[in-house]
């Protein structure tokens, strides 16, 4: 490896080093606060190392990894999400009885796994990244072992993830059997001259889709989502909703672009049916839920369906749409779960919809932030979510996919109902005079609220002035 390789890989190396460093700091018996602060610093460092990526992109580190602009963009989103989750975690875990320090080590490892996914161009690195991410998540989900939901969620995730990984591996093996390589570009070249896909390859791809579909929680591999979202500690839930999905979407997009999979109609038909099923089932399942975490879990199924809709045309615009939607979705979902984290108490997570009653009269700022995030998820104009959805619709209509666009609209209409239900709950009733609460961690509370306010500002900013982000997304587009 040359010096340039090291520079290109510096974010990954930094994340790896950080996890080791934090482990050493824990051995030195530093307090939770110091561990949190140093991991925050390391996250910031990793984030800024992205700015020093050599611009001679794409930079290949043969045969496993490639660092191009798109990878940098996705890594940026992933590390930024890790950073936000890290900030929001302090109060949440400080309140709990378990020793919270090792949590940060796992956070770094999972972020690393997702970043490897974003840069991978080979089945080996894909699988390695996926497993680094998943194994870390097992522990994160079950972190608060005293709560029985946590262990249950962790076990469920463990069994199902292992099961689906088996599918994934078997699918890779079949494709290897057919093409003789595990590198995306060589696979693509071997398919280049073929008018249709050989059955062995198709079977392999189908098996792989089971594994990928499980990670993305699209229908019909979605059933774990609600249980795991609900059972996991809230910061971890926001991590699953953003980081783990973003990495997988990135590698999926890269794989399809490199092998030029968009020209094979059976593949597209399958993706389309998955997208349609996800949009309908996800939105319907969320309809009458009383648990806000479960609502967001089901809505995430629908949102991943929307992302697939963006991906299906395989045009330049659809890649932009995926990137834009991903960015908008990350910011929004981090904000929503952030509010939930802040409102959680030692005993209970703020997940029952009743606990949001009259929130506006008690904490007007938090209620406004949460409303903005929910409106953005619903795709109301002047929020980032609207522009994202508009982009997706434009991309799919441009390519003539009327059917899925239509389902997307129907799904959004159904979705509006449960988002508005939460909002109306927050504004209903009268809380009287807001009472002054004694916060146990005023500084961190303030920092968390400021971070969430900034994210809300982004949500509205990208809705009113999307050109900035569109330009950015276009610059960091995946080359076809």
């Amino acid at each position, binding site marked *: 490896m040359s010096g340039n390789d090291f520079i290109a890989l510096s974010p990954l190396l930094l994340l790896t080093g950080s996890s080791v460093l934090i482990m050493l700091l824990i051995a030195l018996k530093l307090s939770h606060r110091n561990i949190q602060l140093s991991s925050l610093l390391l996250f910031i460092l990793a984030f800024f190392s992205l700015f020093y990526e050599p611009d001679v992109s794409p930079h290949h580190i043969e045969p496993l990894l490639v660092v191009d602009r798109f990878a940098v963009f996705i890594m940026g989103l992933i590390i930024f999400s890790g950073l936000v989750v890290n900030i929001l975690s302090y109060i949440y875990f400080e309140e709990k009885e378990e020793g919270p320090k090792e949590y940060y080590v796992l956070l770094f490892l999972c972020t690393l796994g997702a970043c490897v996914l974003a840069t991978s161009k080979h089945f080996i690195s894909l699988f390695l990244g996926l497993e680094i991410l998943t194994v870390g998540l097992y522990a994160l989900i079950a972190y608060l072992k005293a709560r029985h939901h946590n262990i249950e969620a962790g*076990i*469920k995730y463990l*069994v*199902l993830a292992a*099961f*689906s990984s088996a*599918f994934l591996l078997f699918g890779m093996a079949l494709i290897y059997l057919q093409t003789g390589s595990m590198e995306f570009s060589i696979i693509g070249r071997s398919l280049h001259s073929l008018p249709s896909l050989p*059955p062995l390859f*198709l*079977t392999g*791809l*189908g*098996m792989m*889709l*089971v594994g990928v*579909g*499980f990670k993305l929680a699209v*229908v*019909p*591999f979605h*059933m*774990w989502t*609600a*249980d795991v979202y609900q059972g996991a500690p809230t910061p971890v839930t926001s991590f699953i909703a953003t980081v783990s999905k973003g990495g997988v979407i990135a590698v999926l997009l890269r794989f399809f672009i490199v092998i030029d999979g968009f020209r094979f*109609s*059976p*593949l597209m*038909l*399958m993706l389309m*049916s998955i997208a349609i099923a996800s949009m309908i*089932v996800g939105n*319907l*399942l969320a*309809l*009458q839920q009383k648990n806000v975490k479960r609502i967001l879990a089901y809505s995430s199924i629908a949102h991943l369906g929307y992302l697939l809709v963006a991906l299906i045309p395989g045009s330049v615009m659809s890649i932009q749409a995926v990137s834009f939607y991903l960015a908008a979705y990350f910011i929004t979902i981090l904000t929503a779960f952030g509010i939930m984290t802040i409102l959680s108490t030692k005993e209970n997570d703020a997940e029952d919809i009743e606990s949001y009653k009259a929130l506006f009269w008690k904490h007007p700022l938090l209620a406004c932030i949460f409303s903005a995030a929910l409106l953005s998820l619903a795709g109301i104009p002047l929020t980032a979510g609207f*522009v994202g959805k*508009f982009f997706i619709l*434009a991309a799919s209509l441009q390519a003539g996919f009327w059917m899925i666009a239509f389902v997307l609209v129907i799904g959004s209409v*159904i979705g509006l109902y449960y988002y508005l239900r939460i909002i109306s709950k927050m504004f209903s009733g009268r809380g009287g005079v807001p009472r002054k609460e004694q916060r146990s961690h005023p500084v961190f509370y303030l920092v968390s609220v400021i971070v969430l306010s900034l994210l809300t500002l982004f949500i509205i900013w990208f809705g*009113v*002035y*999307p*050109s900035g982000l*569109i330009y950015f997304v276009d610059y960091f587009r995946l080359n076809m």
Partner: protein
Amino acid sequence: MDYLLWLIPAFPLVGFIVLALLGKHLSRFWIAIIGAGSVSLSAILTFVIGFSFLSSTPTGGHYSQTLWTWLEVAAFNPKITLYLDALSLVFVFVITFIGALIHIYSVAFMAADKDYARFFACMNLFVFSMLLLVLADNLLLLYLGWEGVGLCSYLLIGFWYENPTNGYAARKAFIITRLGDTAMAIGLFVIFYQFGTLVIPDILALAPSTWHEGATIATVAALLLLAGGIGKSAQLPLQTWLPDAMAGPSPVSALIHAATMVTAGVYLIARMHVIFQLSPIVQMIVAGIGAATLLIAGFSALTQYDIKRVLAYSTISQIGYMFLALGLGAWTAAIFHFMIHAFFKALLFLAAGAVIEALNHEHNMFKMGGLKNKLPVIFWTFLIGSASLAALPIISAGFYSKDQILWYAWASEHGSPILWLIALLGAFITAAYTTRMMVLTFWGDAKTSVGHYPGKLMTIPLIVLAFFSLFAGFIELPHNFGQFTLFSNLLHQVLPETVLKAGIHGELLFQLLALLVTFGGIYLAYIFWYKQPQRIEKLKRSAPLMSLYRFWFSGWGFDQVYQVLFVKPIVFIANINKNDVVDKLYQGITTATVHLYRLLSFTQSGSLRWYIIGLVIGAILILSIQLML
């Protein structure tokens, strides 16, 4: 200079955001500084930009500043662009300058109100929306401002929401203007469909070559825009909301329901004048609506006893004059009357507010009286405002603006003796009800004692407005007073000149007639309500006259007619259709989705075995679909 343009609407927007977010935590002093200060800064900036605009007209006759493109999809790329030409400059000047004076007045007027911050937040939001409306370079942005001012009007009419009638008035205003707004939105669709753009200068340039004069589509578009205009500007037949809108605080009436928002319709028609010119029928309708409205509202104003309702009807009537002028093709005359009207009507509303407050919230003019010596500043400024409203010749600004419209009603290409007679009769009534209001309020015996006296913050804006109500008319003199036409010269950069009929003379004769009519009106009111009030009593004994009086008092029975024609049938249908038939369809959809939800919920059993089976089934499905196709 154009790069500073964005700051004009930005100041009030920032003021709104700060007050809305932090209003609860700020002291009254700071609320006043932010609320009135933001608009004052805009006014100062408008002076600076306006000065540079006037001293050297920019190339193309406008400043424009593109802030950003909102979305860019195929041909649809709405830009956030501000556009300042002579027409918008007049409006921006009125909005910021009079707006600033009204804000300063409000600092004292609202001082005792518990919702001080909410008041200023809404007012700032209003000023921002109104500025957006007149500075927008495309109809989409204009529509955003249009809806924004409607929302603020609703919020401010219902400002004292504890009283249910105020809430009712606010809803009435919102719903009735919504009728016009909807028509206008459809008009925008028609325009976009026809031209593929919503950028106003492009539309105005394209329209004459795309549509020939009198084309049906031009008529449709113009009619739809006109419907939007009459809703906002309270013209026949959508005028009924404005008198009830007086439920809001007096500064709100002055700013929104006299000086600015209600003239948005005038702005829209003047801005889109090319489309109206392409449809002579619609232009005739505009003139007809204006003429009818000015008469109907004038008669109603003559019978009111609530001082603010007199002013409300008078506003409807004066906007009727502006519509008449627009319909006559006297574009600059309409805008001139808009500006002068903004000065004196804002003055009258603010002065009336001061009177009402001084008399402990007494609105009834018949319980006022004798205030001439008790409230001298209010008296003198109110007198000047009234003189301008009554168009007292030579010395008042209102004379110069109204005289122009009267002249064009006769002499312009579209003018006719009937329109002229109506406008003249309107002038007579205006003089009469203005004198009646003046006499009842300030002369005669004091019937209510003065509670407290207005402070400097309230009187200074009155004096400034009074100054303009007297002297602003001198920037545009009638043709036979020497060719001094500063105002119309400026506006002719944007608006076409008025075409006169050939061979029309005798402007002086018409002016003398107008003078006679004005003094006639004043004299009549003087006799009836001051000198010999017993005559009124005598008239009141006659039954037919009394019913006519009641008819006028109720605003020509429009509310009752609408009650019978629209409200009652709808309520009736709503009652017999309690279990809505159409709703069944939607309920069916709801029930179906809920059932689907229940059905799907069964799959969420929480059992791991079941989840694995789900995974396997999914895998089988995928593989079989793939291999079969």
